[in-house]
């Protein structure tokens, strides 16, 4: 079956099985592999993308539910890796293995979009569903704070 949606500003149309998820469609059909497979049951956050500007878990999102909507992956977040969060994540040297980081950044981006100056507790509550086995949590918090500050300037 065919699904049409806007992906990182471009109109795309994909032919998939009916039970296909957004995650595997992005990764294996459209070859946008920044969005990662971690758990498949929406509990780790590695597959986080934006659906009409809301952070969602693409691993549990049926492809049918994105029809006509706007999907943004980290490939579409910043030009040349220059989104304030991307810059801050580099400055704070956040990633270790890096596998969860696209999801972390995409999750954080929706926080800053709605709350340009989040408190520590607000950051934690917004980010708590995104797991990082390398344990970069404290650097993630620092980077989000930094990106928020940069944005205020």
């Amino acid at each position: 079956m065919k699904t049409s949606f806007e992906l990182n500003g471009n109109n795309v149309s994909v032919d998939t099985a009916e039970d296909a998820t957004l995650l595997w469609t992005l990764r294996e059909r459209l070859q946008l592999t920044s969005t990662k497979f971690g758990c498949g049951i929406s509990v780790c956050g590695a597959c986080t993308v934006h659906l009409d500007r809301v952070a969602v878990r693409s691993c549990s999102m049926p492809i049918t539910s994105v029809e006509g909507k706007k999907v943004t992956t980290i490939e579409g977040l910043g030009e040349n890796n220059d989104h304030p969060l991307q810059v801050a994540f580099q400055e704070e040297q956040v990633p270790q293995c890096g596998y969860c980081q696209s999801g972390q950044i995409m999750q954080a981006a929706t926080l800053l979009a709605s709350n340009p100056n989040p408190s520590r507790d607000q950051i934690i509550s917004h980010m708590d569903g995104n797991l990082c086995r390398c344990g970069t949590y404290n650097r993630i918090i620092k980077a989000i704070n930094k990106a928020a500050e940069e944005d205020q300037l």
Partner: protein
Amino acid sequence: MMRNKQRNMSRRHFLATTGGATIFIGGYCLLPGCTEKGIAEDKEAIKKEVNVWVKLTSSDQVIIYNPAAEMGQGSMTAVPLVLAEEMDADWSKVKILNSPVEAETYGVGWSPGGTKNMTTAGSRTIRSYYQLMRETGAQIRAGLLQNAAEKWQVNVEELTTKPGYVIHEISDRTMSFGEIAEFGNFESLPTISSVKMKDPKDFRLIGKVLPRYDVPSKTDGTATYAMDIQLPGMMYGFINRSAVHGAKPELTNESEIKNMEGVVSVVTLDHGIGLVSESVEAGLKAKHQMKINWADTLALSHNSEEDLKAYTIEGASESKKDGDVDSAIKTATKVHEATFTNKYVYHAQMEPLNAVISLSTDKQSAELWIGSQAPDRAKSAVAQTLGINESKVTVNQLFLGGGFGRRTLSGYAAECAALAMSVNGPVKLIWTREDDVSYGAFRPQVKHFFKAGLDREGRITSWDHTAVGPGGGLSNGGAGVSHYDIPNVRFMRKDVDHGIRTKHWRAVGHGPHKYAIETFIDQLARSNNTDPYLYRLEMMKGNERARRVLERAAELSNWDPTPSRGKAMGIAFADRDSFSCGVAQISLNHDTGVIRVHKYWCALDAGVIVQPDNALAQVEGAVIMGISSSLKEQIDIKDGKVVQSNFDDYPILRMSEAPESIEVALIDSDEAPDGIGEAGLPAVGGAIASAFAALTGKYLYDMPFTPERVLAVLKDAL
């Protein structure tokens, strides 16, 4: 686009890339958002191979080959950086590529004369490569000087270097490394024994805060993991593996599965039934549809909880001995005994295991894409599976989405090859998270039996430790207490075979052993009415280096053994080759049993530290993983089957559970570099248990310290 994507692939891949693979890379980033990262390879420039480690280009680029797996620990930056230091390369012009997987050329032995290997594990990378990279860098620098001297017709003694240039001060001339690349001859480099290495006080890269090479690509999604590889005509492999280790499978609905839409082949393996499908969706559907009968196996009788409780020291044999424990215990003023346990834990690396393979039409050669801690062994595994010579297997090492020991095993490479044998075309093998948990290879459960004899002053005169549980050598290491002044020490070990897969897990035996040892020492200190910090300090009189680490941690944390406002500090020491000391500040919810670690401090002596900020990051991460495994993580096995299946029933530490701060002090040292990736982890369990004792007067004898276990301890008048 193309260059960027190729950055993580091996040199051989550049040379041997098939038409198909090139199409994949070219077509990889058709959509916007893929940006060029790091230094692009200048295709026009002349390239000169200096030796197997370095290529120079006429555009002043220095290409350095990295032999280590990059799984977040930073070796990809640190190893080439050591070479660049001695070579006097301009770091901003250095491009790092993963080396070909050729252990004879790029591997190192772990002991003098040991077999060369490319295994990245045990915090050994910098330890193993530091000297070699320094020597190689110095040798290349000497070769550059030699070439410039010949060109200028001057005495080589008159030449020196600044980053990226050879200088002849007398005539005020400079020549860039790129210029030398155009004419230089490096066929006979000066011998390593003839070249001089830098005085460490002149280091400008080693020990300085520099960004990691891989970080930019990990903030925009362009870092490539094996899971991300796309090849034309690629199919997907899935396997149902035996839930009970060692059980052989029999598929009872084979024709039904084979007839499912999108299923290309079904493959019977020793440990499971695999399938190859046209799409992920078709593969997952067929995987869940399989009906398999499993044969009986030893592991069927294993129930981890009951077995752990039932372990006894009967039949344990002596593993290490110093002095005479049996005599010393008889003359002791006081004798203390305690038993501790720890459960199996799972690696939980964020990227489930996977691999991609492309076989030649005659299936006599193969190209593998993998993230492996032992890519040389993955190469052998593929060759063995296909029945071909290793020289016919090309391995492309990619980024690893976490390793922690799990990716030292090569079964997933062999599986991928076995599935690809059944079809015509490349195959991407994907493990689901459930596969990764249920077919995990766990840090072994251990029961520790302690008996200590103390003299009148409360000093330990006799130390007897027996560790019982599966895992063979995995539970042999980490039991040492030689940094403490104890005259009579014995370590006994009893291995129990349950037929369960066990494997190295960050810090291996040190995690369980240091938790048990340090918690017992804490108990001995408190029973003697002594501050557990001062008690250790007294025992470290003869070990200056260890004592300094202990003192530094106390200073950093402003150590105070007295609880205040519901919070208490605890302390523990660990030797994982490097010395580390951790202090945890915790609180406890007496109603729910939840322990919260508020702050954590760690002092670390790891010798010379190549990348200080990365060392901090490694300790921060190790502390988080240490807290996670101490408070939350456990794998249970019932009737041989792993009970847990995903992150919902195997929770790992979340951001809201992480300490507000982790402060790390790195001790200045001129000693040879030691391990860092694991060093911060082993003290965590003991530090938390120590703080718990300060707060409650009770001890946590069983790890993890889950709320229900903590409540049980609080109720029990221990």
